[in-house]
């Protein structure tokens, strides 16, 4: 239990008496960092959260965006880092389950998942490999069983996650606007717990997640049951169609304590409940355990007597349990009884609103000298370096991962995983493009520019499919916030994200803060993960096969920005250098130009340039199209740089455009109209990835060889090494 002594004193003052043991448990869960956001809440307000498409209603656990024609898209992101670090299979699986119920609680059907996974160095560390393998299986087993496609994500390895696991899951929902649950309740309405039974798993999970991970407390990890979750989804959607739900909330962190107090607080009501009415997995559970168990696959529903009968019929059909555990009152109190005995009686306002903190921050000492220009000796040939990068776990194809996820179920997936962003078709003829991106290596070197970079990269990815960004999800993952240096990195990242969101009018529609991500070696690198949703009104870019003779344009300047790059960190084992920065005006005009080019169907494909730099991005085009290329480095726009910097710099706002030569003039009209920096840098053909610098070959690599290495190295690493 993590209630600190001053918090206990505060509680006593607020309620004017000694708290009961149940009250202590409820408060400890609800005032934990995980549930209360006490360290971050004050600052999160800086993010813009409103926009023309945003629908705000009380009590939603997910963001809601109006996509027109009477339809809405919902979105949310969550992580399950602590549990996944202890028990990767169950931790990752229940992470999927939790975020899906957030989508469901708005009254929308979950239609897609994306996951961001981060572990230690799997090349050296067997434990990291075990965590990775089992987290992937956990996600696959859960998402596949539910029939919700996992359409995208990212995987990264870095020593800062040694003995730890970062498992972020974003979920997308879709439904009719008229079917959204309008959370409301009136006196006498019934409070119902529906779904799986309450057991001893996940006891104190939120406090567990709000401390540094010191013990392998497996009882704090929940046990997944995707079959029950699937039944709950179908039962709830049937109940929604019949308008049987007044208000609804998912049971997540803090279990019943959190769901009951937060629902009551959001709806301005009181709730009286009896722990003896809760259906439990074991007969001898203590009341306190029932109140804070984080057993999965449970939903809290408020409805009236008449609708209850219909709801019970639906539950019978799906053979899931549903218990009336209490009723709505108007005293704004959370009144918990065990039979006739009161075991907790607290103002919901006190429970649901922990005192917010204003933690001190201070620029970390390590940042003073980390950002400066750094150069390495030049090689005459970079083919070997390329092979090494293509085989590296962060750059190698992730097909071993997404090949285990059903990414087709639901028959919406137009652009499948393995491209820049995934695209789903919606029922109104529009398309939704989605992507999540993180970059802890750059965020470590410059927390502000790194975070902006993640945001811009996710935008670039959806823009590559022809989508205009309409909403953002942020997941801010940092170490112990009580360390002022860590808290400073949190604030810097948040400020950067806010600036970008405001400048580009992209509202933050959902998010999560995960703090206390500490490993035995110290704090993780700042790890904000940004999800961007984009909308396509007409048609997404139909990616066409690249043929011999097709040409390549790069949009955007390549700069001396190799800080946090794979080239510096993987090849040279060097942490430092200049972090890529986003020039907002350049970023904006490049995005606009690319969207117009795609809309006019002047191109065969558009590819984002990011991890590994343009050498890797161009190679990806060659490998997926099984065709060679001939690229001249001196044609790359930007200041004059060493060859390795041109090849591997990870500068932002760059796009690779493949086109048939007959479309060149029409393309150039648009590029000139927006005055973007661009150049024709080469063409496709033959069977080797061929780069020249001043007419001398600097990379010459067989496409077959490159593809074989890129495609298989991650799988080999997991299964055989």
């Amino acid at each position, binding site marked *: 239990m993590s209630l600190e002594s001053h918090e206990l004193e505060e509680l006593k003052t607020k309620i004017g008496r000694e708290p009961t043991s149940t009250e202590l448990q409820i408060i400890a869960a609800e005032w934990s960092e995980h549930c209360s956001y006490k360290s971050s809440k004050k600052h999160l307000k800086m993010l813009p959260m409103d926009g023309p498409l945003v629908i705000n209603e009380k009590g939603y656990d997910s963001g809601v965006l109006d996509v027109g024609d009477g339809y809405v898209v919902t979105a949310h992101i969550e992580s399950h880092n602590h549990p996944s670090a202890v028990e990767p299979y169950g931790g990752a699986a229940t992470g999927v389950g939790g975020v899906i119920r957030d989508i469901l609680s708005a009254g929308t059907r979950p239609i897609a998942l994306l996951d961001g996974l981060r572990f230690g160095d799997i090349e050296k560390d067997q434990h990291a490999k075990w965590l990775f393998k089992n987290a992937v*299986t956990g996600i*696959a*087993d859960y998402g*596949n*069983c*539910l*029939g919700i496609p996992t359409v995208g994500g990212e995987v990264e390895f870095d020593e800062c996650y040694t003995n730890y696991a970062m498992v972020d899951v974003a979920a997308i929902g879709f439904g009719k606007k008229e079917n959204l649950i309008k959370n409301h309740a009136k006196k006498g309405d019934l409070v119902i717990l529906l779904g799986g039974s309450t057991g001893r798993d996940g006891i104190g999970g939120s406090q567990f997640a709000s401390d540094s991970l010191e013990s392998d407390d497996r009882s704090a990890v929940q046990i997944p*049951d*995707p*079959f029950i979750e*699937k*039944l709950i989804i179908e039962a709830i959607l049937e109940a929604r169609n019949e308008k049987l739900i007044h208000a609804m909330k998912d049971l997540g962190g803090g279990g019943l304590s959190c769901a009951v107090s937060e629902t009551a607080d959001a709806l301005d009501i009181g709730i009286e409940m009896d722990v003896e009415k809760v259906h439990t997995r074991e007969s001898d559970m203590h009341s306190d355990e029932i109140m804070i168990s984080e057993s999965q696959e449970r939903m809290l529903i408020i409805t009236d007597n008449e609708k209850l009968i219909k709801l019970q019929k639906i539950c019978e*059909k*799906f*053979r899931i349990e549903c218990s009336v555990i209490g009723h709505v009152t108007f005293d704004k109190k959370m009144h918990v009884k065990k039979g006739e005995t009161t075991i907790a009686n607290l103002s919901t306002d006190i429970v649901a609103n922990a005192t917010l903190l204003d933690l001190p921050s201070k620029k970390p000492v390590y940042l003073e000298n980390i950002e400066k220009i750094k150069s390495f000796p030049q090689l005459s040939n970079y083919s070997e370096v390329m092979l090494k990068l293509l085989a590296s776990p962060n750059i190698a194809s992730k097909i071993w991962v*997404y*090949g*285990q*996820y*059903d*990414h*087709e*179920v*639901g*028959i*919406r*997936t*137009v652009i*499948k995983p393995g491209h820049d962003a995934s695209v789903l*078709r919606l029922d109104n003829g529009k398309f939704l493009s989605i992507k999540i991106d993180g970059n802890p290596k750059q965020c470590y070197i410059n927390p502000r520019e790194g975070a902006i970079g993640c945001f811009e990269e996710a935008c670039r990815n959806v823009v590559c499919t022809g989508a205009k960004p309409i909403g953002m999800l942020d997941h801010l993952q940092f170490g112990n916030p009580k360390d002022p240096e860590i808290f400073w990195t949190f604030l810097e990242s948040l400020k950067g994200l806010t600036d970008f969101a405001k400048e580009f009018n992209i509202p933050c529609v959902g998010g999560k803060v995960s703090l206390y991500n500490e490993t035995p070696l110290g704090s993780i690198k700042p790890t904000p993960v940004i999800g961007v949703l984009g909308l396509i009104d007409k048609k997404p870019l139909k990616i066409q096969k690249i043929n011999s003779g097709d040409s390549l344009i790069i949009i955007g300047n390549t700069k001396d920005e190799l800080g946090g790059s794979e080239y510096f960190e993987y090849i040279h084992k060097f942490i430092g250098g200049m972090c890529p920065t986003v020039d907002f005006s350049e970023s904006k005009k490049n995005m606009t130009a690319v969207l117009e080019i795609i809309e006019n169907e002047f191109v065969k494909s558009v590819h984002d340039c990011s991890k590994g730099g343009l050498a890797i991005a161009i190679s990806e085009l060659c490998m997926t199209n099984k065709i060679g290329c001939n690229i001249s480095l001196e044609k790359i726009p930007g200041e004059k740089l060493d060859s390795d910097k041109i090849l591997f710099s990870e500068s932002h706002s760059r796009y690779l455009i493949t086109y048939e030569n007959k479309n060149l003039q029409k393309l150039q009209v648009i590029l000139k109209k927006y005055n973007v920096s661009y150049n024709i840098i080469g063409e496709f053909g033959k069977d080797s990835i061929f780069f020249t610098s001043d007419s001398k070959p600097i990379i010459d690599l067989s496409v077959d060889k490159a593809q074989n290495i890129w495609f298989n190295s991650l799988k080999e690493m997991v299964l055989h090494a």
Partner: protein
Amino acid sequence: MNVGVIVFPGSNCDRDMFHVLSDVFHLNVEYCWHDKPLPKNLDAVVLPGGFSYGDRLRAGVIAAHSPIIQDVKKIAEKGIPILGVCNGFQILVESGLLPGVLLKNDSLNFMCEWTNLIVKNNQTPFTNQFELNQKIPIPIANGEGRYFVDDDTLIELEKNNQIVFKYDQVVNGSSNHIAGVCNEDGNVVGMMPHPERAVESEINPHDNKPSSLIFESLIKKMGVNN
């Protein structure tokens, strides 16, 4: 023409199949919940994919003992066309309507990828519009999709022309590359790949026409014009 799509707790491709049958091929479709009797007026039945009963014990084995399967067996004897896709195929095998078993893929992983099928029997209600050996680009998505029969049964299957689809290469280690089979009468067909995910050009990156022939074959068989 009335097609029933059977729904078990945990089915998850039922809505996709319903959409394809009704919106793409304009058939009358109804969902049939597992604990209700099968409606009398059905001209064909589809068992869609998913994880019936969460794949507990073994994929398809619990659903194979549902009351509705007794009705399915009765109409199978009458020669009514029945198609099982993925978990539906697993259920048909577990209920004894089709020969063989479906084991874990030899990778031991769930596999979601596009494959090519080759039509080996173009006499069934779901393949009569194909040329023999015609190729179908189509996705698979399964963990227990490796079709297995012993050598004697394999000879039997070949003799009776019960092998309907094969993969064009080794995909999951299945016996003789088998991806789909039928019963001796040919009216009950099971296949691991998902035709409902391949019939619309918007979501099929290859060619959607071949897999459409699976449903067009059924329409042809029933003699209805849509």
